[in-house]
């Protein structure tokens, strides 16, 4: 079994053993090994263009592109991620491109030149992140012609800027024609990298930080970290059985934040995204099956036409960078009471497929959550996939995510309505709310009040008042308890208006 990570940074091959494997990608790129105790030496220069402004994946200043082999196409596909909440061990057999690596010789890249010409930078600290996010948009663009305003706004919603007010950055984006911007792939010896990756093979990898750590008396010894990158589910399960304390990592978009805050430092890690059979998304018997390692961005692409209501709020989960890395199953397993995805899967009555060396079992999602961050998941078990029945035509699915800021914000309240309507009658109702208790909850009395009755505004308002009595939210930094109660109540009426009444109109007066 390979005992080192191998990846490329701006075309240079890096082989990493030991402690450096457990660093965040941004620390690694910026020369963080030095910071953490002088262990090992960074290969090449410190790449300080990747900035750290928040260390929470909330500002995008650390945006880099990660290229991975595309299916059978002999190329690398690049996507943006937040390097501050990604780990080096997630980079095996990848090419990372930083802001230092987008330029071809002394000439600025078209994205860089557009940012210069349009006054897209002021203090410059967020600028590398915007350059990389814009380049990522170009890489992902399959439409013809310049990027649309909508694409730019959504695509840059993971990058904050405090100076510019964004206008001149949008100007720079509008000026770009993806067809005329060379792909990152053309800058690097892609074929050689792919050949290298092929030679390495897709076997599993195990890296142990004990391998390199030598106490130099200058720093406390960091806890040893045992990192396992399985390549098959069987390997994963076998390793899991032996290491029940290991932390399963898919996109690391939450654990990265916790790690930076010093709240977690798992002694052992098992990655899921190296297991190709976990990276699946398919419809089987009218159920949508999403694997444990399937990133949000893939779900997003699927849901666009298949489940528009899901897609609409999904594009507000995290940020584009987070959705490139994070997964649905990670979100479910993390079990936050305000996890954006859970209410939909409650009302859709999804089933989780669990597996261990002892076998497999299915569990309805609602039975999976036992209390605040408590799961019906045994120590040797992992979530393999989520199966979700697709809504039929008579289903009115409405999903709400209310947050202080529209994009890239953690929800104050989430609410999901699954209403089956025949004629004017509500024949079935499932309603789930998040952010109102220690877990996401169904609102059975409110549901009951609707079933078998005409779906009128009055009925929904009544149900809203009932719902209000079914929950006991707390006050916290995201909103007061009273606000949450009012929101839950009001969203019933809002739902009615959207289902039965006028469309909400937002936009400037003509």
């Amino acid at each position, binding site marked *: 079994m390979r005992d080192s990570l191998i990846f490329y940074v701006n075309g240079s091959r890096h082989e990493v053993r030991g402690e450096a494997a457990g660093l965040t990608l941004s620390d690694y790129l910026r020369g963080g090994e030095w910071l953490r105790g002088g262990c090992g030496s960074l290969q090449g220069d410190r790449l300080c263009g990747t900035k750290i402004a928040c260390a929470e994946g909330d500002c995008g200043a650390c945006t880099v592109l990660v290229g991975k082999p595309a299916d059978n196409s002999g190329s690398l596909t690049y996507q943006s991620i937040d390097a501050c909440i990604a780990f080096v061990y997630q980079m095996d057999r990848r090419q990372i491109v930083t802001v230092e690596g987008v330029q071809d010789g002394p000439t600025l890249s078209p994205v860089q030149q557009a940012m210069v010409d349009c006054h897209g930078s*002021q203090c410059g600290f967020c600028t590398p992140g915007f350059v990389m996010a814009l380049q990522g948009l170009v890489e992902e663009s399959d439409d013809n012609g310049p990027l649309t305003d909508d694409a730019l706004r959504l695509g840059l919603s993971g990058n904050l800027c405090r*100076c510019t007010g964004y*206008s*001149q950055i949008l100007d720079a984006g509008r000026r770009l024609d993806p067809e005329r911007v060379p792909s990152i792939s053309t800058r690097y010896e892609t074929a050689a990298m792919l050949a290298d990756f092929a030679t390495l093979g897709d076997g599993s990898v195990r890296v142990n930080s004990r391998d390199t750590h030598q106490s130099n008396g200058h720093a406390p010894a960091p806890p040893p970290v045992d990192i396992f990158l399985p390549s098959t589910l069987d390997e994963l399960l076998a390793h899991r059985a032996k290491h029940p304390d290991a932390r399963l990592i898919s996109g690391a978009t939450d654990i990265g934040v916790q790690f930076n805050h010093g709240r977690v430092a798992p002694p052992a890690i098992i990655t899921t995204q190296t297991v190709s059979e976990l990276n699946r998304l398919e419809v089987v018997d009218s159920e949508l099956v999403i694997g444990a390692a399937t990133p949000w961005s893939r779900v997003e692409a699927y849901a666009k036409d298949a489940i528009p209501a899901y897609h609409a709020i999904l594009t507000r989960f995290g940020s584009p960078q987070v959705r490139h890395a994070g997964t649905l199953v990670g979100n479910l397993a993390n079990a936050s009471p305000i996890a954006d995805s859970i209410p939909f899967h409650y009302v859709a009555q999804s089933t989780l497929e669990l597996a261990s060396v002892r076998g497999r079992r299915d569990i309805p999602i609602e039975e999976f959550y036992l209390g605040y961050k408590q799961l019906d998941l045994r120590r040797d078990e992992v979530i393999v996939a989520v199966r979700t029945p697709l809504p039929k035509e008579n289903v009115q699915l409405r999903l709400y995510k209310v947050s202080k800021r529209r994009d890239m914000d953690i929800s104050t309240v989430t609410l999901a309505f699954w209403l089956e309507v025949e004629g004017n009658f509500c024949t079935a109702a499932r309603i789930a709310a998040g952010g109102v208790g220690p877990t996401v909850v169904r609102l059975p009395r409110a549901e009951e009040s609707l079933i078998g009755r005409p779906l009128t505004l009055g009925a929904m308002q009544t149900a809203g008042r009932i719902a209000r009595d079914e929950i006991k939210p707390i006050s916290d930094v995201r909103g*007061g308890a009273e606000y949450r109660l009012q929101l839950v109540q009001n969203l019933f009426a809002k739902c009615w208006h959207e289902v039965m009444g006028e469309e909400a109109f937002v936009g400037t007066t003509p």
Partner: protein
Amino acid sequence: MPSVGQSLPHDSATGHVTGAARYIDDLPRLDRELCVDFVGSPVAAGRIRSLDLTAARRVPGVVCLLTYNDLGGPNHFGPIIPDEPFLAAEEVAYVGQPIVVIAAETVAAARKARELVVVDVEEQKPILSIDDALQASSFIGPERRMVSPGAENDAAFEEALRSAPHTLSGRFFSGGQEQFYFETQAAMSIRGESGDIRVISSTQNTTETQAVVAEALGLGMHEVVCECHRMGGGFGGKETQSAITAVMTALVAQRTGRPARLTLRRGDDMRITGKRHAYQTDYRVAFAKDGRLIAAVLAFYSNGGAFADLSTSVMERTMLHADNAYHVPMLRVTGQVCRTNLPPNTAFRGFGGPQGVAVIESVLEDIAKVVGRDAFDVRRTNLYRDGDDSRNVTHYGQIVRDHVMDETFDRLAASSSYRHRVVKVAEFNAASRTHVKGIAISAIKFGISFTTKFLNQANALVNVYTDGTVQVSTGGTEMGQGLYTKIQQIVADEFGLEPARVRVMATSSEKSNNTSPTAASAGTDLNGMAAIDACRKITDRMRVYAAGLFASAERGLVAAPEHIVIDEGAVWDDRAPSHRLDFGQFCAMARRERVDIGARGFYATPGVDYNRETGRGNPFFYYTTGAAVAEVTIDRFTGELTFDRADLSMDIGRAINPGIDRGQVIGGFIQGVGWVTNEELRYNDAGHLLSTGPTTYKIPNITDTPRVFIVDFIDNPKHQKNVRLSKAVGEPPLMLGVAVWLAAKNALQSLAGDEPVSLSIPATSEELLKRMAALVDQAVPDEAIR
């Protein structure tokens, strides 16, 4: 072609987009460099019983732990009132107040030590709110008063209030705001061979940093050099509070002899540094039937935090902007800074102006409701009128002159189709059961100059080299606002050179002594003028020298400096224009003839003076003005606000760099929008900040900016002063963000009856929903079952 007026890219733009531009944390590690961290107070108020550093000292890699006892100088500082300790000694006055400085070989060791320091504190009940402070009479500085000429007589003033057709009174709240510069506070210090200290700091204030470090370390100012190459944003937050990291690293460097660096983690930065002041304002206004203001009393209270910092000065600017763009014939303003157990609040773009402007703008919106006129018309009626002696004097006695505010309003009304849209908004509101819209205009008249007279000065050093290239140094710092680029353009024009031949050097207290902070929007005004002064000293000498060179008895040309032209990269006599010397060649010749082609320039803003005791004078050199129309849509079920459209128009004189100024206007405006909408600082009852990072503190996102966003500049031929006839632009547009808040208020007003609606800043979804729920009992009108 002159460089001034061209939209040159920012002088660091290439560095920004390539990642080559370095900030403090990016600078190469130095040999034996130490990582610095600190331990702060665990409570908002209390007495330190004991400090146990034993376990922390044992951590491998920890080099030293330092307390106030290790300071070489007095343990207090403050730009106005020196009431703030560098490191807490006995009392702690806010959560996170630095007590112990840690130096270690690695970040990990420093972090570990930080966990192991034991601070035993006897906790006291903190004063957190303005109300708490008022009850406890906990204040910073005396109450200040300003009374407009004609409002001095109590009886007459009361009579004016009493006899007015209408009066309104109330209490207005505005919350604080985090600067959220992207580069957190950061500094690096290096001890020199004779115990001198070099501090590289992310600071708006090299001189203050130099002075504070010297004082804390017990050194002379001549033993400390402070440099700033650039900041990753400042916004006022690095005007005084950059001292914290500077002093910590300097202290470590002094004690250990080793280089030391500290870049605050975001959470620490947000917890321990000061912010925009929260305000509470009691007001009473009297006005005529047409909404014309007659008299007003405004009592401002600000939450100053634990120490004075710049709070009294911030309050002064609030009071000087209580009128905003409107003439209030009889105005009485008081201001009191409250001392609380929060970090000392400080400068933030606008510097108290926004808190003053928001109150009168809110009041005008209410007046419009009471008198039944459109708020645009009420504002237009109340504007200062240029040249009208009865309507052009402020409450501090300065005449508001040479402005185009009437024209700005009229143009904006037309270009934004304001009247038409007011009708459309009303139609929308009559039809929609799910959303409510609002539209509003607001204005800004922002006084330019430091209100503390002595700060209105600057110096510059200009060195011309023998190849005809130029280096310029001023005390102005670069925080993204484009100061260096503008100075480069100004200096290039003085010598008639391509801007590429002029380089603006990193700001250093070694080259520019006794400088003012880069603040008050005046960076270009002051430093640009000082640079011009230096340039003209050089060009005067060049002309004298060149006159001799070009003099020719055969052609009848006597030496005449006034005929020498220095332009287009060359030097010539305009009487014989075909004979030109290349500028570089000329500079080399000048040196060989022992002509000094370097100079230091100086500038002091003329005509500004203000008497703080009487509240009278001319504190401002001129005003930057503008107005904005904003439209919003609010979801009646959730309170979520969508910002639909903005139209801005500003008089910023003749822009030195229109591209940069446009960025300042838009960026400032959106920062103001953040202040009035989603940026909310939440504390718990013990005074701990809960919103300590971008996860919980929400600055505007790209998707929060309006789909229709029209920014326009209005020409003002009456403006005939200041550097290259430009106007300062940094702060004024921030206050136009208030238009968005007014639009939200306007939307709520359409749900209310005749009573003006109350709304606080920030108008978060929560605040909006709460107000809507109160207005209609519940946010959603109950309707008969259909």
